């Protein structure tokens, strides 16, 4: 494939926070022209979520959290709560392929931009809404961010140190998971439209996408009438498996022995050949003792050395990479995963690169996260067909802007 797969696809991106922006940055990486639309009065909160330790005139243009998930996008501001903003937006819709948003279920209708209005502007549009609990059904008015989605999906009930205390994932897991499904939805809808000429309306529920990720537990429930309780870091079928402290400040490795052969290799490696011939049943019964043996071996060793030695012996093992060590991981370094995307308003730092490595189309990140309203004039003239005088009027009326003035963080 010589060109990126979404080359020529135009996406109007009304998403905010993380779930939607994760989706649209993936679409951008795959070649779509992504036009991020924010209101001068209701911008993407991620621009100003975290307090800043540095003093800059326009902090909304240089927030590292915003920069992580908004590369490969253009920025347009439009106040969609006002008629002139809505009209300009619908002119953009008429010349776009996809509209995507992750508002609460009722917001688009309240803005006067319900599905009928959007399809009226462009009958072949692909419209993806990503409300937390969908636009229909009895939970549609629920409000939620990623951790709420994880709770409400059954996923959290599968995690925990013990069977009685569910544990949430350390990131807002429901967000990027929903974002990935939205990318799949856009791609499938584009494939279908290529054949039928018709667009699609996708009422994605972030909760449902996360429930889907817990699906194996539902199969167990259907077969046995119950779901196995969380087992911490242990595995429900094989042993031993666990997380063990190694040398250094809060440094850990995981070790996992899925069969007799790997356990035998593990026992030899940790200097306990006397345990090498334990059967699976014996290993399960003596899991605490085996954990203690692995811990005693690992504690004085550097995690990299411990993993190298175990892997050399054929034992699945890995470091628990934290936010410092993951930036120095030699494997990610060799694969050029962390990259610099120059942004004149930010000091240099490395962010994640493209995850879907299409070997020939070769997606790369060339465009840093956009400054607020940076593309107002070019997009509104070239895509919406507005003249200079009309754009001037929008600016004079505060429908578009490229600054936020004084903002409170949080």
């Amino acid at each position, binding site marked *: 494939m010589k*060109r990126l797969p979404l080359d020529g696809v135009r996406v109007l991106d009304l998403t905010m926070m993380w779930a939607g922006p994760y989706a649209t940055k993936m679409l951008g990486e795959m070649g779509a022209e992504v036009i991020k639309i924010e209101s001068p009065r209701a911008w993407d909160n991620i621009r100003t979520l975290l307090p800043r330790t540095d003093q800059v005139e326009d902090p909304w243009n240089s927030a590292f*959290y915003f920069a992580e998930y908004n590369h490969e996008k253009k920025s347009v501001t439009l106040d969609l709560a006002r008629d002139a903003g809505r009209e300009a937006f619908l002119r953009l819709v008429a010349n776009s392929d996809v509209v995507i948003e992750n508002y609460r279920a009722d917001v688009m209708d309240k803005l006067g931009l319900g599905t009928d209005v959007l399809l009226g502007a462009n009958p072949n549009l692909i419209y993806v809404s990503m409300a937390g609990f969908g636009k229909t059904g009895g939970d549609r008015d629920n409000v939620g961010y990623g951790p709420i989605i994880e709770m409400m999906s*059954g996923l959290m009930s599968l995690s925990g140190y013990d069977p009685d205390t569910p544990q*949430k994932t350390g990131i807002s897991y429901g967000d990027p998971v929903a974002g990935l499904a939205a990318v799949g939805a856009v791609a499938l809808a584009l494939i279908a439209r290529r054949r039928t000429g018709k667009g699609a309306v996708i009422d994605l*529920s972030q909760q449902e996408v996360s429930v889907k*990720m817990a699906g194996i*537990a539902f199969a167990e429930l259907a077969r046995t009438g119950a779901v196995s309780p969380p087992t911490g870091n242990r595995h429900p079928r094989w042993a031993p498996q666990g997380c063990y402290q190694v040398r250094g400040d809060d440094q850990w490795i*995981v070790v996992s022995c899925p069969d007799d052969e790997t356990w035998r290799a593990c026992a030899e490696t940790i200097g306990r050949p006397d345990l090498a011939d334990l059967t699976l049943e014996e290993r399960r019964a003596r899991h605490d003792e085996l954990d203690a043996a692995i811990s005693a071996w690992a504690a004085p060793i550097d995690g990299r050395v411990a993993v190298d030695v175990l892997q050399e012996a054929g034992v699945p093992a890995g470091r628990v990479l934290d*936010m410092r060590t993951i930036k120095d991981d030699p494997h990610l370094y060799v694969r050029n995963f962390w990259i610099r995307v120059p942004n004149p308003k930010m000091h240099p730092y490395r962010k994640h690169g493209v995850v879907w490595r299409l070997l*020939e189309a070769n997606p790369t990140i060339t465009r840093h996260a956009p400054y607020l309203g940076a593309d107002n004039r070019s997009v509104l003239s070239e895509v919406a067909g507005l003249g200079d005088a009309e754009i001037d009027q929008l600016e004079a009326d505060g429908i578009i802007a490229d600054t936020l003035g004084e903002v409170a963080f949080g």
Partner: protein
Amino acid sequence: MESSPLEGIRVVELGGGIPAGYCSHLLAGYGADVVQIGDPGLTEDEDRYLSRGKRRVPMPDADDLHALLTAAHVVVDGRAPADGDAGMPGARQLRERYPHLVITSLTPFGLDGPHAEHRATNIVSFASGGIMALTGERDRPPLQTGGEQAFMLGGLHGFAATATALLGALIQGEGDLIDISFQECAASMLEYCAAAWEYESLFVERSGNTPRPEWGVYRVADGWAGVCCLGRQIPALLDVLGVEQEPRWLDPVQRTEHADELSAHILVFMAERTKDEIVALGPPNKVPFGAVRTPAELVNHSPLLERGFFDDGPDGRLPGRPFPGLTWVRLQPVVQAGIDEVLSTWGRVAEEVAS
């Protein structure tokens, strides 16, 4: 009924495992004809969930494999470099020999690099991607998320990437090889945490179930529930709690200083209510409340049933389409098939392609 978006798309699943299984399950659900080569190495529950809607064939000989790959549009390749090639061409060789194919390679560490041949189970993949270091209580070891999430996440990435690349292949008439590493899938999802260390020297560690009073999980009368409020939602939360709107709660710096007091208010409020009562407070007050639901609760949850989320089939009620709006196929349990049977339909296509 409209046709499924992937009707007429032929997919070969190689190597088995959860990531390839989940990726091609989603492709099958949206209408692709998926042929699974050999034993996928799944447990009974994994197999029931992930292999629905597919045909499973025995390992083909070289000629039959060639015929399958010639007729296919997509290969979902779950073979890791550490698994060895078992006499079959690797992902890169497939790309050279069958340039029309979209080949989605799903591996723990990618196809190259110093750890490419490392062996990995789900927990090893979860640990290597950074999410595990952020999960769990600070005074206990890092914790994996349940439900084989590193592998499921790899499969979800695979699905979205495959669908995207397939569109490109249909337009451009040529496929590509997509190298997806589970480590990188997770490492691209570290929220602000990885950037915070490098940009601000702010080291984010695991902070348990309740990193902040207004962002956490609490015990309630019949289980666990939670709240996740941004600054702008704090006033509404205070109203619900019946707590006066004072600067020590409203100001983010003061709120941190008085975190224990706010936690105590929320703790008591939650403990006196049930999960349903907490969740019901969310919509009218615009406060993000939730409850820890279990699969047993969700399987009969009427809003999900109203939306037609589940598939009811011979293996019971299982999560169905991830999103509505595109036709999802009624998936039947996996069918054992002979290579000849598959080639009787696919082979004709291959002959047409060859001619």
